[in-house]
């Protein structure tokens, strides 16, 4: 089967700084993949390249066989690490905005997810707590019927209750014929929802493995392996 995402020898430079170097991997349908790395390792850069927000300096990225561009963006739902909503919006405006913007936005799914998340149409985006705002951003991202979902740090800086809810929603609402990539540096809480993990360190891919395989052959958790790889 054709991979949903194919990243081949991708590099990215910002002036003299090399943010990514020779990154290659494939990601298939029905998988939840953890993109792990410490702060500044290149996770967000990689997400942006795949989302088509920035262009790689070298290499190639394809989504369902299409090079990154207008067509690939129509199949890719990206939840950036900074909110995409405006402070004047109410929740219903944010939903309407996304529904206008993305042809694959599923209003029925959004409605269901809002009630699951405990969000109301009338809530003002500017008055939402960090945790509630993350729930809204996730609702916006997962309500699209995309092939590839990119969630950049969805659980960063939120309280444990919101974190639980976000993990619940990811497991419950992702679709089996799509691929979901979640970047995070908080491994402990989230490692059990992954099929595979990718470790990025200093702009390079250092490991790409099935999570149960790590537990089986190495007899250790992803978080332990993470600590070893990122030890300073």
């Amino acid at each position, binding site marked *: 089967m054709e991979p949903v995402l194919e990243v081949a020898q991708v590099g990215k430079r910002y002036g003299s700084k090399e943010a990514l170097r020779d990154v290659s991997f494939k990601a298939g349908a*029905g*998988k*939840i993949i953890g993109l792990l790395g410490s702060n500044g390792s290149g996770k967000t850069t990689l997400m942006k390249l795949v989302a088509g927000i920035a262009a790689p300096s070298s290499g190639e990225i394809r989504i369902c066989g299409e090079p990154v561009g207008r067509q690939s963006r129509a199949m890719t739902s990206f939840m950036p690490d900074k909110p995409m909503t405006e402070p004047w919006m109410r929740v219903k405006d944010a939903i309407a905005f996304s529904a206008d913007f993305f042809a694959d936005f599923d209003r029925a799914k959004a409605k269901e997810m809002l009630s699951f998340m405990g969000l109301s149409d009338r809530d003002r985006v500017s008055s939402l707590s960090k945790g509630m705002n993350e729930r809204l951003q996730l609702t916006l991202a997962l309500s699209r019927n995309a092939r590839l979902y990119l969630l950049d740090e969805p659980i960063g800086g939120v309280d444990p209750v919101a974190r*639980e809810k976000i*993990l*619940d929603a990811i*497991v*419950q609402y992702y679709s*089996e014929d799509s691929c979901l990539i979640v970047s995070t540096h908080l491994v*402990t809480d989230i*490692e*059990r*929802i*992954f*099929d595979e993990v990718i470790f990025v360190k200093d702009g390079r891919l250092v490991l790409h493995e099935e*999570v*149960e395989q790590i*537990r*089986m052959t190495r*007899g*250790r*958790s*992803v*978080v*332990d392996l993470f600590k070893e790889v990122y030890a300073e």
Partner: protein
Amino acid sequence: MTIEFDNNAPIYIQIMNYMKKQIVIGKLGPGDKIESVRDLAAELQINPNTIQRTFQELEREGIVETKRGLGRYVTEEESTIMRIKKEMAAELLDRFVGGMKELGFTGADIVALVEDAVRDDANAKGGA
């Protein structure tokens, strides 16, 4: 359902063992319907493919049966349930006997100690 997971060991094996135990102690009875992959994944916050694998393995061992279009059910074969019960007992015994031998007890010592322990347990319960 709550399971304390150990992230250092394969998760699907931990869920398998948990479900086997539920069946052996009767929390899940013969012919009972099992939750869907998605529901169980959400409840336990586990990757759905891991749950899928758990169910496949349980099916392979004849503990769970799929009825097309209806879902998954616990087997109604009493002999299969007895078999799991014996397997779980054998595992416990293995670990126990191994531990006792490490402490330097011989076979006869172990049997005598177990007899005492079982008698004490019965008396404690009878006296209460």
